[in-house]
């Protein structure tokens, strides 16, 4: 059941804009790792590199699952998803004119997830009761918080081994942010999920993280091997607010 994501010396960018410079990080089986840093620092770009949506110009991204190692920079996004990696994208990216249930069912598109679709759907409605009530409602007509729940539910429908979550707090009112982060924490314990979460909301993220990295201007500036290390570090405020 071993799973290990290894990112080594990755540099990437859009056209001439260098978003990442020599980033290295690892995520082991069952861990929840936080990728922290304010916006525009490359967190989303790194997530997209892992998902094959952005090709790094240097470095390697490899995923070891049950003994076989896959070079994610060579695979298409669909192939990576089929390995059991799911991403809750920034801004949720739901299908606005499809119903809640249709969005959830689309989450289970990958063959390995299709067999357990009924069970996973029941779980999704159990974890997010609000979605059960709005089963027939169009995803676009739901509030920010509900859309975030649906986006997480949809990712879970693919029965992932590794769950990437990109800025779950985006556009959510503060009380909803802590609720969403708590739910992600619960998923970890309930399914033994391995989670890599990019989040700007420092205190919220370290509530559920085992350890974390701080990324500023596309470079990892600090690696906290434990939450305690992250918390005492007074550098954090300086990195975060660039004062």
């Amino acid at each position, binding site marked *: 059941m071993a799973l290990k994501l290894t990112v080594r010396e990755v540099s990437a960018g859009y056209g001439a804009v260098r978003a990442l410079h020599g980033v290295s990080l690892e995520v082991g089986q069952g861990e929840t790792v936080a990728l922290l840093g*304010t916006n525009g*620092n490359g967190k989303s770009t790194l997530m997209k590199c892992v998902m094959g949506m952005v090709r790094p110009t240097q470095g390697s991204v490899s995923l070891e699952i049950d003994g076989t190692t896959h070079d994610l920079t060579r695979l298409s996004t669909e192939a990576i998803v089929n390995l059991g990696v799911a991403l809750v994208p920034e801004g949720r990216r739901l299908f*606005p004119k499809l119903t809640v249930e249709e969005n959830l069912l689309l989450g289970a598109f990958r063959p390995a997830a299709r067999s357990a679709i009924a069970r996973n759907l029941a779980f999704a409605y159990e974890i997010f009761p609000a979605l059960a009530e709005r089963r027939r409602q169009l995803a676009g007509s739901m509030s920010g918080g509900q859309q975030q729940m649906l986006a997480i539910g949809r990712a879970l429908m693919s029965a992932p081994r590794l769950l990437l979550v990109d800025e779950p707090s*985006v556009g959510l009112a503060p009380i909803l942010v802590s609720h969403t982060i708590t739910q992600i924490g619960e998923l970890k314990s309930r399914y033994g999920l391995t989670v890599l979460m990019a*989040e700007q909301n420092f205190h*919220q993220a370290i509530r559920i993280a085992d350890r974390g990295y701080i990324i500023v201007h596309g470079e990892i500036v600090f690696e906290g091997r434990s939450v305690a290390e992250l918390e005492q570090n007074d550098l954090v405020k300086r990195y975060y*607010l*660039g004062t």
Partner: protein
Amino acid sequence: MDATHLKITAVSKHFGGFTALDGVSLEIARGERFGLIGPNGSGKTTLINCVSGSLRNDGGSIEFNGEDVSRLPAFQRTRRGIARSFQIPRPFASMSLLENLVVPLEFVVHRRSLHGADTRGEAMALLQDMGLAAKADTPTSSLSQVELRKMELARAMAARPQLLISDEAMAGLAGGEVDEVLEILFKLNATGITIIMIEHIMQAVMRFSQRVVCLDAGRIICEGTPESIVQNPDVQKAYLGA
């Protein structure tokens, strides 16, 4: 002339069920250097799209020089003096860099008296200010990312605005390039132009702005001088998390 240049009152904007702006009110004085910050998805870009006319706000009003412009199409707001640059540069790809600047000069500045105007000369002058004169006759596809950002600012300036909105003009640029763009914005402000800057790069916003507002989840969570903003617990909560 009344000191308030731009007055935004209780502006709201919804996309389906999602509330992007939830009753935002703020006033910007003439000639002010104003900073707008906030985490992703806080509604910053939606707000300036409502001001520039790319989007129409659902509720509230936007007054510029005392006139409510919230129902006007974008080109009329540009003609009244509101100009903006785009976060993701949108050059007119089939034209040269110089012609990109000639468009606003012809459609805003000299729209009533075209035959006498030396639009190319004025456009070249603007390019010289931005250090882009060498590439005047090249297609925009040959420009680097920072040159494209400068083109966006130059094209906004070509409309001779009173209010310039700079939408993340420095995102992803290297340190030296950030200073270059900052210098340009300082110079423009010195000529009396009110500037709204939207950036994630804290040092740039803090150095540039006289006053800063922080948006989160479509609401203003605090307002004040750059120094007070950094210490403000709400901002830290928005950025660092409760």
